[in-house]
């Protein structure tokens, strides 16, 4: 009952951003196939994909730097498809920041408000607030060239946030920073998102960045949205082979379904009704369980196979083990506690098993 009420409430309130049927062509080249997308208010959305997948194009279409070839972009129920960037309730943090080198930090941050001809006092006050939000109060009078990369990033953030955009767009916001700074900035971004309560959409090719920031994940490939949803859900239940490979490591297991049973090329056989013929399953490395013993029984209701350890990588916090399973097939297992790995040696014979629900069918590989 309560679910019904919630659904009704959701329907009454349109999503903050709705992209419907949007395509983008450059001459004969198709950058975006028809894209449908909804982003609700207050979310932190990541558009994740390899370079050239169209994610930046999509962001630029939302910002107004490009016009879609077909389709519609709506923000807060208003059609903004034909509006330029200066007339949209969005602001962007650019990949190279695009700060104005001839202005001070405060002038950069106040630029949008001065263009909007706000009174001097209001500008000064809001600049102070925005700089406080990104923790750069001390730097107001500095020149841009006197700032580090991380500080410039914060100025770019403050300059966009001061406009109180309905949607803040970030194009690879952390790509130019080194690892330590990137992690610190991720924490900062989460805090700023929480404190402003705004709607953030960012583009990235780095899945760990997407997972650590976003509560809504959109995976793109070759101009299409492959899957959208809660990050954990996308990871656990990838809909396509691409998603399973791009989001985390995976074992790809081709198989054939005959009747109600599937037989994997690895040799495992299990009950699974569905479309007949060739199919593909994926299996996350951490779902594999290794046992040194040579048991005759499959034990816990899953599938068990025999294999030989080919290679062991101890990566500090985890162990990665490559196994060969007879007939030329290999599997990769990940043990999140490397101490579990100490029992194994290269060349050892082991039993590998997994729970059946860990197998995700992604259809026939293209």
């Amino acid at each position, binding site marked *: 009952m309560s679910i019904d009420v919630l659904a009704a409430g959701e329907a009454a309130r349109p999503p903050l951003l709705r992209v419907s049927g949007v395509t983008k062509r450059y001459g004969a080249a198709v950058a975006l196939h028809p894209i449908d997308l909804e982003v609700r208010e207050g979310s932190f959305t990541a558009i994740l994909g390899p370079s050239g997948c169209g994610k930046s194009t999509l962001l630029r279409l939302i910002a107004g730097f490009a016009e879609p070839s077909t389709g519609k972009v709506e923000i807060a129920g208003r059609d903004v498809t034909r509006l330029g960037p200066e007339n949209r309730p969005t602001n962007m943090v650019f990949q190279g920041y695009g700060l*104005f*080198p001839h202005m001070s930090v405060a002038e950069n941050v106040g630029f949008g408000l001065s263009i909007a001809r706000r009174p001097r006092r209001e500008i000064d006050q809001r600049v102070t607030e925005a700089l406080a939000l990104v923790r750069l109060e001390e730097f107001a009078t500095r020149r841009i060239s006197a700032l580090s990369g991380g500080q410039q990033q914060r100025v770019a953030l403050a300059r*966009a946030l001061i406009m109180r955009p309905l949607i803040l767009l970030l194009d690879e916001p952390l790509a130019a920073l080194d690892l330590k700074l990137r992690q610190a900035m991720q924490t900062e971004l989460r805090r700023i998102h929480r404190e402003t309560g705004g709607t953030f959409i960012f583009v990235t090719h780095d899945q760990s960045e997407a997972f650590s920031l976003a509560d809504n994940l959109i995976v793109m490939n070759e101009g299409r949205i492959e899957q959208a949803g809660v990050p954990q859900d996308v990871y656990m239940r990838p809909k396509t082979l691409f998603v399973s490979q791009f989001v985390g490591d995976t074992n790809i297991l081709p198989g054939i379904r005959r009747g109600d049973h599937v037989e994997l090329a690895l040799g495992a056989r299990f009950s699974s009704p569905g479309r007949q013929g060739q199919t593909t399953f994926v299996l996350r490395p951490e779902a594999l369980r290794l046992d040194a013993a040579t048991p005759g029984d499959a034990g816990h209701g899953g599938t068990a196979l025999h294999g030989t350890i080919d290679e062991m990588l101890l990566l500090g916090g985890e162990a990665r083990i490559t196994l060969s399973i007879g007939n030329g097939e290999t599997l990769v297992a990940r043990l999140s506690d490397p101490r579990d790995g100490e029992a194994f040696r290269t060349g050892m014979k082991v039993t590998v098993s997994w729970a059946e629900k860990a197998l995700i069918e992604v259809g026939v590989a293209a």
Partner: protein
Amino acid sequence: MMRIVAFAWSLVMGLLSVFLLGPLVLVAIFSFSSNALISFPMGDLTLKWYRDLFVNPDFYAALSNSLAIALPVALISTVTGTLAAYAFAEWRTRLGLPLLALLGLPVLLPPLVIAISLVVLYVRWLGLPLGRPAVIGGHVLVTQPLVAAVIASRMASFDFTVLEAARDLGASRWQTFWKVTLPQMRAAIVGAALIAFALSLDEFIIAVFTIGGGNTISTFVWGKIKTTLDPSINAIATILLLMTIGLTLIALRLTRYRG
């Protein structure tokens, strides 16, 4: 051995510098000499030749012509050259560089060829009278490519993201140009204008062909050489030299133009 080679090279370079700069230095020195001929011994120091110049109405006519030409030349070539460089840079197409090179063609042609073609163009084809506007047109032809080159080299290090950032923050195209592009380009533009001004000021061949009646500073000097070897020429040369060097120094400093 190495030392001897190094010394020989320094000597060659030194002599070459003397050979190239010597006449300039001599001209400057003799502009202060009381001798009527350029000869040693130098005679007394005097400012007579400068005084002669400044009481000569022909000199003023030539100077005012030169300024009336150089100022519009600097203005026009700066505007057109800047716009051209800006457009080529903003398109960022493969066409940009060839177009810029095409625009620069007049610099590569011998000035004599340009001068003659201009006269033919003005008189035969356009039916325009020779005179100041004709010289201005000719000078713009050769100064504009240099302006474009200076601006284009500045553009090469221009971050175009700032333009999108400005638009994103609500600025119109026009506001973006005035508040973001121009302030960053200002030094290069002023420098380019000074270079154009200096080039126009001492340009001779195009001026002599297209001025019709009257003189610019350089044709005035030429006229004087033809009649008498009057040392006031030295005075004019020294003035021109100082102006050109001064403007160029300021321009180089402003633009940080290298090459």
